[in-house]
């Protein structure tokens, strides 16, 4: 059954995308490590972690596409899952510092010594083990998404209400992680990493390997998402997106489908966060900022939601644009980003990839396009005041 699912997942687009990602996974470290410095295709060292960062952002955008593009759940809290995965990895990396910290404490990370911790808090146990940390990268966002989604979907919190409470969720987490006594380093976060699995995180080879790992993880995520959206379950997800009440009346368990998509998406986001942290070298509570989570939405929207390729394109393009913009015209980045939000929603609702596909499909006989969600029940109808007496 699983192999059947995988086969279905390998539709033409997904195959091309996975191949391209694997190619990039090889090409970038090759250009950085093997090609000599003077070679025209040589990639300088500082670019590798930067590209790796873009890749993990692309993965985050893909995660959002699964819930928003296919299931109609606009989560404004995906940054929280990303950051939680990142924190789990950051905790492993902190434990690996050992006695090389400023205070040289073999057990306690520097910030704990600084904050007068005497013993390691219980929730830090086990994080010296890489596999335990990996488990947590998946489990923590997954369980949070499960509990949150279970409560929210069961009581039919939909549309903008769900968006607002996901935003409140990440906001609450941000406030909590900013506290020094929460046990995660307060506003400084976790940083100053040394080793991952015994390799120096700062060395070029490790960074190349991390980049390749990110690309491979992204390829796997594409396969998983593709398998889901091409399965029967994926069809139900699209049906829920377009007409939730009707799907429910047809006898589908809407809540369970949404919960499944939400949890899978949160886990992908968590893995993306875990890959992000060793390449960037820091994780701090600002990752939880509601603004960050909304930025993920615009990556997905610009690339084209409901396409799987689109969010990856959007995530890479916009983050590259942000890097260029903020270094050249730092004062105008917010104008550009804000303008993009407005223009894309007004003039490019299907995003870059969706629009290109439309143009290509115009020659072919018209086909029902499911990339554009239709108006759904309650959230779209204007809400009314109490009637006049």
């Amino acid at each position, binding site marked *: 059954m699983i192999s059947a699912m995988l086969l279905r997942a390998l539709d033409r687009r997904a195959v091309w995308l996975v191949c391209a990602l694997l190619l990039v996974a090889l090409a970038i470290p090759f250009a950085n490590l093997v090609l000599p410095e003077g070679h025209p295709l040589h990639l300088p060292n500082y670019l590798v972690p930067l590209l790796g960062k873009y890749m993990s952002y692309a993965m985050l955008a893909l995660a959002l596409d699964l819930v928003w593009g296919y299931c109609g759940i*606009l989560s404004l809290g995906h940054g929280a899952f990303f950051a939680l995965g990142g924190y789990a990895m950051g905790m492993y990396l902190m434990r690996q510092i050992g006695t090389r910290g400023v205070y040289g404490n073999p057990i306690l990370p520097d910030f704990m010594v600084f904050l007068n911790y005497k013993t390691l808090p219980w929730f830090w146990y086990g994080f010296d083990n890489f596999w335990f940390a990996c488990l947590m990268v998946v489990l923590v966002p997954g369980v949070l998404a499960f509990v949150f989604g279970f409560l929210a979907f069961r009581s*039919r919190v939909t549309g903008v209400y769900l968006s607002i409470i996901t935003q*409140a969720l990440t906001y609450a987490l941000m406030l909590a992680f900013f506290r020094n006594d929460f046990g995660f380093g307060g506003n400084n976060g976790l940083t100053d990493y040394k080793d991952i699995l015994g390799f120096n995180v700062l060395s070029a080879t490790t960074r190349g390997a991390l980049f390749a790992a990110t690309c491979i993880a992204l390829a796997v995520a594409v396969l998983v998402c593709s398998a889901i959206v091409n399965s029967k379950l994926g069809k139900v997800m699209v049906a829920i997106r377009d007409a939730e009440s009707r799907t429910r009346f047809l006898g589908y368990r809407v809540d369970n489908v949404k919960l499944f998509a939400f949890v899978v998406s949160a886990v992908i986001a968590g893995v993306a966060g875990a890959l992000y942290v060793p390449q960037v070298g820091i994780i701090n509570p600002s990752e939880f900022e509601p603004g960050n989570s909304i930025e993920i939405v615009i990556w997905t929207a610009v690339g084209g939601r409901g396409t799987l390729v689109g969010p990856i394109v959007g995530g890479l393009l916009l983050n590259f644009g942000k890097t260029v913009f903020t270094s050249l015209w730092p004062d105008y980045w*917010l104008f550009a980003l804000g303008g993009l939000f*407005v223009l*894309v929603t007004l003039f490019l609702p299907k995003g870059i990839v969706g629009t290109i596909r439309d143009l290509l499909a115009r020659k072919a006989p018209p086909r029902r396009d499911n990339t554009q969600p239709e108006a759904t029940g309650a959230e779209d*109808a204007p809400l*009314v*005041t109490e009637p006049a007496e």
Partner: protein
Amino acid sequence: MATRLLRLIGVLLACLVLAATPALAQSQANAAMVDALGQGGFPQREAAIATLVATGDARVVPILQALSDGNLYTRISDGKVVIAAKAGSAFALKGPLDGSELGTAAAGDLDKIKINNGLRGKIRTAIGQMTLLSTDRATRLSAAQSILKTADPTTFELLQTALAAETDPQIKSVMELAEAVIVLKTDATLEQKRAAIQTVAGHGDRDALTVLTAALTTVPDALKPDVQAGIDAINRQLQLWSVAQNLAYGVSLGSVLLLAAIGLAITFGVMGVINMAHGEMVMLGAYVTFVVQQLLQSYAPGAMEWSLVIAVPAAFLFTGLVGIAIERGIIRWLYGRPLETLLATWGLSLILQQAVRSIFGPTNRPVLIPQWMTGQVSLGGLDITWNRLWILVFAILVFAALQLVLNRTPLGLQMRAVTQNRRMASAMGIRTPFVDAMTFGLGSGVAGLAGVALTQIDNVSPNLGQGYIIDSFMVVVFGGVGNLWGTLIGALSIGVANKFMEPYFGAVLGKIIILVLIILFIQRRPRGLFALKGRAVEP
């Protein structure tokens, strides 16, 4: 018996002084009188002190204090009396009456005016007479407070005299407290002490609590239960006041939340438009206040006191117009697509923030707080600042005005008609696009009003709105969409709950708990506290 006699004499003496004081208050102490302090022995000195006191001149008090503290000297060269303070190896001299600097002198050039304990006692009494019985209210209050602090039994008679003459309730209360404290310290009878404890307990404030806690160790064992009972009574009372204080803080926070959220209740609640730029409308309102004040400063400095009154309509009009422009330019293309509206208005909020940052700079801009909004008012054990009180009043006014507009004006009627059934309203001849624009303009204008109020308690910076947007959404969602009363109740209950949690969990954790509670609450009631019932909810 001895104390009673002493007290009697004291009262008599004080009566004499009281009778004499008004007549003597006119005369002035002069240099000759002061110089007399340095001549002769103790009896002469005592006479000189009496002469000085008899003038009733306020400048005498520091001289006597200096004498009592041993800082009063005679300059040997000319026999002048000076106040000297040690400065290195020499002394810095000051004229006793006018406080003028008289240079320095070596220790050998000065002769310390000698003083004994008898004289010290007399001086203390004299100072008390000139302070506790002074005609100046502030002087009397500070004198009473200093006696409460030192609880010097020798001032007892004076205190009683003063108490009998005192009319100001606040000073009287301090004096009574001081009197009771002295009684507890001296060897008065048990009954007197018990009465004193009752008096102190009756005051029921923090001062009284300190007094009783200190007394717990010094009073005879027989009185300890009384003291303990007094402490318990005060604690109960203080607890009540602290509950009331929390309630007041909570209502105040609730009024701020109400102001911030009520514009959103119009755009989100009534129109169903998710306006993420709402916070920026609030911020624009605050900047309008800043600009109005700058203009007034340059052209009509006299009107600065009323700058807020001018800023209110200005902010309403400006943000209202910006809101109409946003509705016409962006939002009307996105009706029926709430999630897209959310994204577009978020983008807009980024643009507005950056625009304000480019024009006014990223730093906080100073906004003047008018005189009538500064200071605080005390109500029993409550302290409420005037600006918080005015914001509460303002929030209520805005709420009432909005209810009036929605329920009693043709525009309000049209708004409700359009939101209930757009096509039917259109068929009845209502220009629905116009009504949409007006509704959004109204919501934005109200956000601008909130901005004016927030200048008084928050920093005017481009990030001002960001801090309120999530709270505002929480209030509207919690209270129930499409219902202004729900917004009111939601804002007040969130504000009060927040302030009651703060003492136990701290501000940040309290806020987190509130957020989590609201998230859980929305699970229970997805449509808020006052949900709309019937077909309107889910067509």
